[in-house]
């Protein structure tokens, strides 16, 4: 069973492809992480699924209905899109009452969702007096109004303090246990890795990974960080290692050899035979975040350069 299916979904804004032939199948149930750096296309994908923006080409279905007819599934989907949006001068309760009325939901549901997100007792306060974290909670409350089968939350932990993040993670897990499918987007994998059952990694509008979390974990490998006594030997050793079939990356402080820790002695011997002295050999296991950053780019600058390169290629 799937909740979302897209086929070659593309959305172009001028020269930039915010979504580039995205083909996805998101399974029913559990927490699904939609992760990618800022500007990767997460929000565009979410808005396309909700019928807020139209695809340039390709197709998409949500809960078995085409996104060309969002009215057929809107009542079964709860959403939080980017920053929570409310009328600041109205109380939390009035804001939710307005949204409940729009969806034809009884007013009694408002109190329930406010309690669920920990805002009971604050319902009569104007939203403009709320902290960002409280607004996020209110946004999640509004998404829960319909008791949805599918929850789509865009950066729900944005602005929350660490305790708030843990609390929201717990809430998302509980919602998933109740049989709902929760799609959560974030630009940080570390925010989601502990709660996700399924992961989609997106960058420049392209899907880099789509599969169970366990499959992603299998991709994390071991590596050995080494450094040479003389800086000049680094590139020579990297070249020799690559020629011998080792997978090597040059890092800021040496070389990273992707290999299991039991090959460190072999690596040391290799360097010694090449008349190169190693001053550091450190074995480690790649974290999920490392793998994510490796896939998506480590810095905004790196991302900007890559984006410019992609734009250049498209021209």
């Amino acid at each position, binding site marked *: 069973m799937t909740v979302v299916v897209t086929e070659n979904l593309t959305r172009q804004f001028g020269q930039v492809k915010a979504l580039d032939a995205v083909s996805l199948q998101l399974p029913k149930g559990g927490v699904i992480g939609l992760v990618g750096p800022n500007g990767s296309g997460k929000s565009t994908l979410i808005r396309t699924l909700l019928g*807020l923006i139209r695809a340039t080409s390709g197709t998409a279905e949500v809960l078995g209905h085409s996104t060309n007819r969002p009215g057929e599934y809107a009542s079964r989907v709860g959403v939080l899109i980017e920053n929570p*949006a409310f*009328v600041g001068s109205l109380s939390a309760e009035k804001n939710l009452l307005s949204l409940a009325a729009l969806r034809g939901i009884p007013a009694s549901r408002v109190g329930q969702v406010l309690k669920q997100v920990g805002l009971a007792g604050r319902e009569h306060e104007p939203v403009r007096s709320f902290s960002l974290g409280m607004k996020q909670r209110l946004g999640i409350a509004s998404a829960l109004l319909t008791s949805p089968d599918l929850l789509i939350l865009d950066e729900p932990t944005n602005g929350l303090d660490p305790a708030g993040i843990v609390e929201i993670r717990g809430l998302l897990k509980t919602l998933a246990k109740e049989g709902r499918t929760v799609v959560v987007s974030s630009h940080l994998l570390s925010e989601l890795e502990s709660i996700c059952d399924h992961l989609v990694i997106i960058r420049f509008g392209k899907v880099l990974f789509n599969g169970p979390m366990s499959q992603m974990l299998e991709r994390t490998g071991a590596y050995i960080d080494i450094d040479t006594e003389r800086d000049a030997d680094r590139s020579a050793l990297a070249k020799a290692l690559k020629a011998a079939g080792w997978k090597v990356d040059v890092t800021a402080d040496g070389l990273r050899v992707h290999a299991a820790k039991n090959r460190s002695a072999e690596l040391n011997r290799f360097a010694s035979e090449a008349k190169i002295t190693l001053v550091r050999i450190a074995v480690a296991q790649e974290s999920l975040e490392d793998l994510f950053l490796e896939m998506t780019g480590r810095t905004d600058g790196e991302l900007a350069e890559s984006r410019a390169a992609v734009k250049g290629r498209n021209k």
Partner: protein
Amino acid sequence: MLNVIRSEAIRIAQRRTLLIWFGLMAGFAVMVNTVMGSALSASTGGLPTPGVSLPTREELETSSGIVAGLWSASNMFGVVTLSLWAFFTAQDYSSGLIRLLVASEPNRIRLLAGKAITLAAFTALAVTVAVIANIVAAPAIGGSGISTAAWGQDLPAVLGKAWINLYLSQLIWGALGLVIAVVSRSAMTAVSLGVGYVLTVESVVRMIDGAPVDQLLGTTLGAIAKGGTEVVSYQTAATLGLGYGLIGFIIAGLVFVRRDVTD
């Protein structure tokens, strides 16, 4: 549709905003009635005041004279109505609420129509406030040597007609505010355009020889509020005004339905 109207009503019924809206309507009604008498003492009427078209002494002394303040200030009321409709429409964009509204009710025409109907209902209240304030303030005109002996004749019909005409003109002003707000997604732009148009553009155009003065928006909607003038008949003004409103709604509908909700 009822769900949309109920939802909009909750958001629009903000005490402070309604106080400003109704207060401005009442304030303009009182102000025009207060200054009308003294302004007429110095002239035979028809003073070229921006946004306000003062009546003649003869008009004031008829049975309809009691509601002269309403049609005199109808364009000022119109600017208030335009501004409030624009504010409530653009607020959805500036707050980002539009994303949630469209995701919750993907039928965008229903959303737009629901908002317009709700605003029309609140406009009816605002016009009622203006009419009441006008009745309270109208006796001030009598102090300027103008005979008010005919004012009580056929009063319910006079008031009813005045209410309907003013309401119709305000609906068209409001619709224009909604259109500009949907297109520009900015209350500030809509209000600036509305006020600037009434106070500046129409006044300037009136100075141009051969300009189609009787088809200008302010002239047309003023004529609707007055129930017709020597320049524009009520029927012509109503047809033209409804045409303006209809074209506006078609533009707003097309833009609202077709445009991506990106912010």
